[in-house]
């Protein structure tokens, strides 16, 4: 559809661009008339153009407002900050623009419009490709490119030579000896490319749909020394497509042996990440021999149709909590959520097995600092001087109420704060009731995404084909040339050669020149005189 039409009106045969029908309301045509009118309007270029504008405009809020698909936490924060406006925006689908019905409506209408335009054009183009090139116009000298030459050969020989010349250059050629002309056309791949481009876009959409239907994406946080087995229960979050079968998850597992992170030290980009790598012991399927692998940011682990990506990292301080009787009631490394680029990380520990129940909240700081404005915070992402700043709470954790709770948030309504303390690794803190909280050290954690997209190969193949089509449609020129012979002076043959191109700002002059000089000599003095036809 990306055709220019400056000269279309001159010769509609060179193009299969649908004619713009001014779709005035078909008064008195009944239901069928109205349906036809609606279909014509929908498949017109003008409607496609309007839908393209709408698609662009509809995408904008997707970048302005936080989106559930990419950043659910930010959406939640927005809703909490401004509930009234947030609710209205949410009702309108502004936090889920690309999954909203109105966005789908636009692109589905656009694709229907596209199909309704492109499919009839494909049929038309198929016929045009098999039809004979159009007959030569009567008066070739009125075409934009015209040459007249004189040949000593007979008219038939000139026509044969012209046909041979054009066929060897892969023109489609038609010869009419009786009327004395040759017609040839070239550059059908312009329209072919154009149609392929648009049809391939439809196939690409199918690939996208297939991927979201039959694929999945799951996230999991794994601490150093811990393992992950690829089953539904082990994911922290899991988003399957409607057609995804859980039992088809690849049966692999891996243990995170070591996570390495390096950061820029000094300079303007102090603290910028330079290197992340996760060394894992990978078991492709139960019973298989373990393999050592490294997962990096641009180097996912590929297993079957699934890929394991390294998407994040952080710190997990290790706490050992002993009650006043001396029994260990808690010993684990706790995943803390990074809050800023320097990995000031917020931590929550819940100890339900004591009476009263115990909870800790606070921060892990890889490079600890405290000031009046920011309080405890980290000044560098690497663990140069790690410390924790924790508050202890006693009371009811609320775990028995049945309401779902986040492991990253302590519900403190029914708890009282009993103390606050800063600790470095190896230090411990005795609470008023005799409970001892020991900060033993830390491990790193890495977050991984496991994803499968069965439609991505189809989408890629479609998009590659569509790009090839696009290049053809924009770069190939469609053009025609004609040769007419007539009797000249003294047994010679007058040869008129003319050409026409429809693509704007291109020319067939070179090809017309080449053909003309192959067929005869420029007529010296009579060249400018018109021979009577």
């Amino acid at each position, binding site marked *: 559809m990306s055709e220019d039409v400056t000269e*279309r*009106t001159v010769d509609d045969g060179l193009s299969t661009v649908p004619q713009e029908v001014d779709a005035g309301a078909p008064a008195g045509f009944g239901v069928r008339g109205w349906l036809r009118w609606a279909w014509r309007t929908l498949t017109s270029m003008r409607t496609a153009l309007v839908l393209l504008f709408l698609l*662009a405009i509809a995408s904008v809020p997707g970048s302005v407002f936080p989106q559930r698909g990419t950043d659910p936490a930010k959406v939640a924060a927005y809703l909490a900050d401004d509930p009234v406006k947030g609710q209205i925006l949410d009702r309108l689908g502004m936090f889920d623009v690309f999954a909203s019905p109105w966005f789908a409506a636009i692109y589905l209408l656009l694709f229907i419009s596209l199909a309704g335009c492109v499919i009839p054009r494909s049929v038309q183009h198929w016929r045009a490709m098999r039809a004979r090139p159009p007959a030569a116009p009567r008066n070739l000298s009125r075409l934009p490119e015209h040459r007249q030459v004189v040949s000593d050969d007979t008219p038939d020989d000139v026509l044969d030579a012209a046909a041979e010349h054009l066929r060897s250059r892969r023109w489609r050629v038609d010869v009419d000896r009786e009327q004395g002309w040759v017609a040839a056309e070239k550059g059908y791949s312009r329209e072919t490319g154009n149609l392929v481009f648009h049809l391939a876009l439809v196939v690409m959409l199918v690939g996208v749909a297939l991927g979201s239907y039959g694929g999945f994406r799951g996230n999991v946080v794994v601490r150093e020394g811990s393992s992950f087995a690829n089953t539904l229960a082990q994911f922290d979050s899991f988003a399957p497509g409607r057609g995804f079968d859980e039992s088809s998850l690849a049966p692999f597992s891996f243990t995170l042996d070591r996570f390495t992170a390096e950061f820029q030290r000094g300079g303007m980009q102090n603290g910028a990440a330079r290197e992340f790598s996760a060394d894992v012991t990978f078991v492709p399927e139960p019973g298989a021999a373990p393999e050592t692998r490294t997962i990096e*940011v641009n180097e996912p682990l590929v297993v079957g149709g699934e890929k394991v990506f390294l998407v994040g990292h952080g710190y997990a301080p290790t706490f050992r909590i002993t009650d006043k009787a001396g029994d260990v009631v808690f010993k684990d490394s706790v995943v803390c959520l990074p809050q800023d680029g320097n990995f000031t990380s917020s931590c929550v520990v819940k100890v339900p097995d004591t009476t009263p129940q115990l909870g800790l909240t606070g921060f892990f700081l890889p490079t600890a600092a405290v000031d009046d404005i920011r309080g405890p915070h980290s000044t560098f992402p690497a663990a140069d001087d790690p410390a924790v700043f924790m508050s202890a709470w006693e009371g009811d954790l609320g775990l028995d109420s049945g309401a779902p709770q986040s492991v990253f948030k302590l519900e403190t309504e029914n708890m009282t704060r009993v103390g606050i303390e800063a600790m470095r690794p190896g230090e411990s803190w005795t609470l008023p009731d005799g409970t001892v909280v020991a900060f033993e050290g830390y491990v790193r954690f890495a977050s991984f*995404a496991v994803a499968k997209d069965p439609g991505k190969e189809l989408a890629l193949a479609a998009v590659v084909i569509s*790009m090839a089509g696009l290049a053809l449609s924009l770069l190939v020129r469609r053009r025609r040339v004609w040769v007419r012979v007539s009797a000249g002076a003294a047994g010679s043959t007058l040869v008129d050669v003319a050409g026409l191109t429809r693509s704007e700002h291109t020319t067939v002059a070179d090809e017309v020149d080449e053909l003309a000089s192959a067929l005869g000599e420029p007529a010296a003095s009579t060249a400018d005189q018109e021979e009577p036809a």
Partner: protein
Amino acid sequence: MSTNETLAQLSNQLVYASMVAYAVSTVSFAASLAATKGRDLTQAAAPVSRRSAKAAETAEAEGSVLVVTRIETETGIGDGGSEPLAPGRRAGNIAISVMWLATILLGAGVLFRGLSVMRAPWGNMYEFSITTAFAISLTYLIIALRRDVRWLGIFVVIPVLLSLGLAVTVLYTEAAQLVPALKSYWLVIHVAIAIICGASFCVAAALSSLYLISEKAERRTAEGRSYWGTGLAKRLPESTKLDGMSYRTIAFMFPLWTFAIVAGAIWAENAWGRYWGWDPKETWAFITWVGYAAYLHARSTAGWKGRKAAYISLVAFACFVFNYFGVNIFFSGLHSYGGV
């Protein structure tokens, strides 16, 4: 790997030196344009729509046989025919020579920036900007080798200077190694193509703007009315030529821009596990793509040709510019490693 500070310093100095040369070139281009005699606007071709309407009538009269009588008015600027040094020609030549010098200096600056960290020099917005400025100038100068496009010079040099000015002031980032997300050979492919597209879209936008001025000047002159752009339009090629140049640039770049997005998607699939996630950068790249697609469609839709199509191409370019600067400044997303 550490940074070679000597080379990084040298690179900065070369970029500053090139800016001085570009400034000189700008003045020369301005002088050249001011001194050019200009053409007679009344000889300008009728607007496209009117011409094709007339052609349609003729075609109908001839029984669908294709007939066009085209009056080509060759009004190349500066090719003063017999006079070897038409007004403005010398200044134009100086401008081109100085621009070559500036571009060589800038090219060396980009090269040394890359050598100082031993990687492709487009890992942040500063590097992207200086490389884009280099690509814009080089594209223009290569065209200038084959055609007389001195009239276009000032409209190319000014965006180049703006881009460099922003680069050294707002966007400047010390030479350094890359964040892990960028360590991929896709950086070289994806970003290099985005740079080429950015450079070309910039030139196409300049041409579209000039078309709008020139077309209006021709129309107003025909109506006998005055217009502020008449003086400028006289020194430019006729509007249909400007429109055609802009179209050809975009038509050539649109498949490449498609490829830039696809290359980005392939890289995203490999780095983040999904090829399309509506990250703000992706969203605006898509909006830009849709904008240029709309431009190409508008050119073959009745009632949208000419000025309206040109406005669409300017809006699409605005989307590209917003995607480059705005997205990194206003939104946070996965592409937020520009160093701003």
